[in-house]
């Protein structure tokens, strides 16, 4: 073989080798992305199914899902999203810490004041939740109402990281120097289990406004029957601002609704 031919062969081998190497490396990277996408879809499918199934039970139950990848729960004023490899919008309200690792425990509670506003989903993983609070008795009492796999993870101490001013139904919590109201024990559960409770609160305010609007629109239709819904509507409208509202409003709306039914009018909820 001549020297020129030898050089040509080596150059040819190097170019073909580089092409094959690039091809196989590209394939490996694309295949990895594909498998990650598959894992993500499987996880989202499992999470979606688990959260939907929780709604169908009338008992206080929780569910556990193994997570092959860690998930991030992102909260913004437009709602929640679950981030695995990419952002996926969640249609539900989630009280949870930001990062959930290895396994996820989920629990669900409908939020009613006294008519249903929305469903809350509480998520946590296997790591403990340490709460240093000024009101150990109150936090312990709400902890007792949680399912066992949540209860066992919450450790309550005396301290000032989670300052509660109020009772089981109404008050404020101060976390990271932010004072945020709660209205109903379901929101207090959320304050205990959320890493960003102020964002959760902003979202629930939107949901309350939606529920108030739906009942307003329903009342407009029901007035066709000749019944007067103005009084109950005036009370329901007060729920749009729960900051300075007394929890007694819930009982008062409940009584007005019962009164409507007792005079043969359709109940508003």
């Amino acid at each position, binding site marked *: 073989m001549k020297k020129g031919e030898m050089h040509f062969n080596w150059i040819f081998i190097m170019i073909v080798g580089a092409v094959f190497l690039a091809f196989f490396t590209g394939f490996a990277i694309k295949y990895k992305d594909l498998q990650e996408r598959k894992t993500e879809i499987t996880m989202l499918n499992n999470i979606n199914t688990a959260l939907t199934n929780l709604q169908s039970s009338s008992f206080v139950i929780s569910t556990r899902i193994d997570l092959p990848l860690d998930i991030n729960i992102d909260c913004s004023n437009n709602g929640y999203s679950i981030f695995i490899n990419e952002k996926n919008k969640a*249609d539900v309200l989630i009280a949870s810490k930001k990062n959930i690792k290895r396994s996820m425990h989920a629990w669900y509670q409908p939020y009613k004041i006294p008519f249903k506003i929305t469903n809350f989903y509480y998520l946590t993983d296997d790591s403990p939740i340490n709460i240093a609070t000024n009101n150990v008795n109150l936090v312990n009492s709400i902890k007792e109402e949680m399912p066992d796999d949540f209860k066992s993870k919450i450790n309550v101490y005396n301290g000032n990281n989670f300052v509660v001013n109020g009772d089981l139904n109404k008050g404020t919590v101060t976390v990271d120097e932010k004072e945020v109201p709660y209205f109903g024990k379901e929101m207090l559960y959320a304050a205990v289990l959320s890493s960003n409770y102020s964002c959760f609160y902003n979202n629930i305010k939107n949901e309350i406004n939606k529920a108030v609007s739906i009942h307003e*629109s329903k009342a407009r239709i029901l007035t066709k029957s000749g019944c007067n819904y103005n009084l109950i509507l005036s009370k329901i409208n007060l729920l749009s601002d729960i900051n300075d509202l007394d929890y007694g409003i819930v009982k008062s709306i409940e009584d007005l609704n019962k009164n409507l039914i007792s005079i043969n009018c359709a109940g508003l*909820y």
Partner: protein
Amino acid sequence: MKKGEVQLHESILVTFFIIIIISLGIVLYYKFTSNSIDNYEMEYKQQQLTSSLIIFQNFFEYTNLGEPMNAVDTSKLFYNNLYYGFRTITVEQVYPAQNDEIKCELNNYPECNYFVVYDNQNTRMKNKIVQSIPVSLYYPLSNEYKLGRLTFYLYY
């Protein structure tokens, strides 16, 4: 050309063709896997749509003193400040059957049988997934229950 050189060239050619065949196999395998993941994603979309149907039903549920009655409260279906992305959501009465389709408006309710609860279509999205579930429809003005169908159209 010497015999050894010919054999060397033959070996290189055979190796080259084997690598080409392996590469083709890998490309086909990748395409096959990619298609199966697309199908899987489609199943996820359908699953998500089923969940949306259930969530939607809960959102407009008829409650008696706060207790769920497993029926859609039709008087709530006029609420129009919803956002479900590119979807159309309809509720229609199927029993008692009626010959004419009468779209429900505030002025003709409850003398109607078809609600367009949400409609946000995008002309660029040519594909759609359609899912329906039977629902019980409650009419509070007449205190009546009727059988209906809740349908979601998801455009993508």
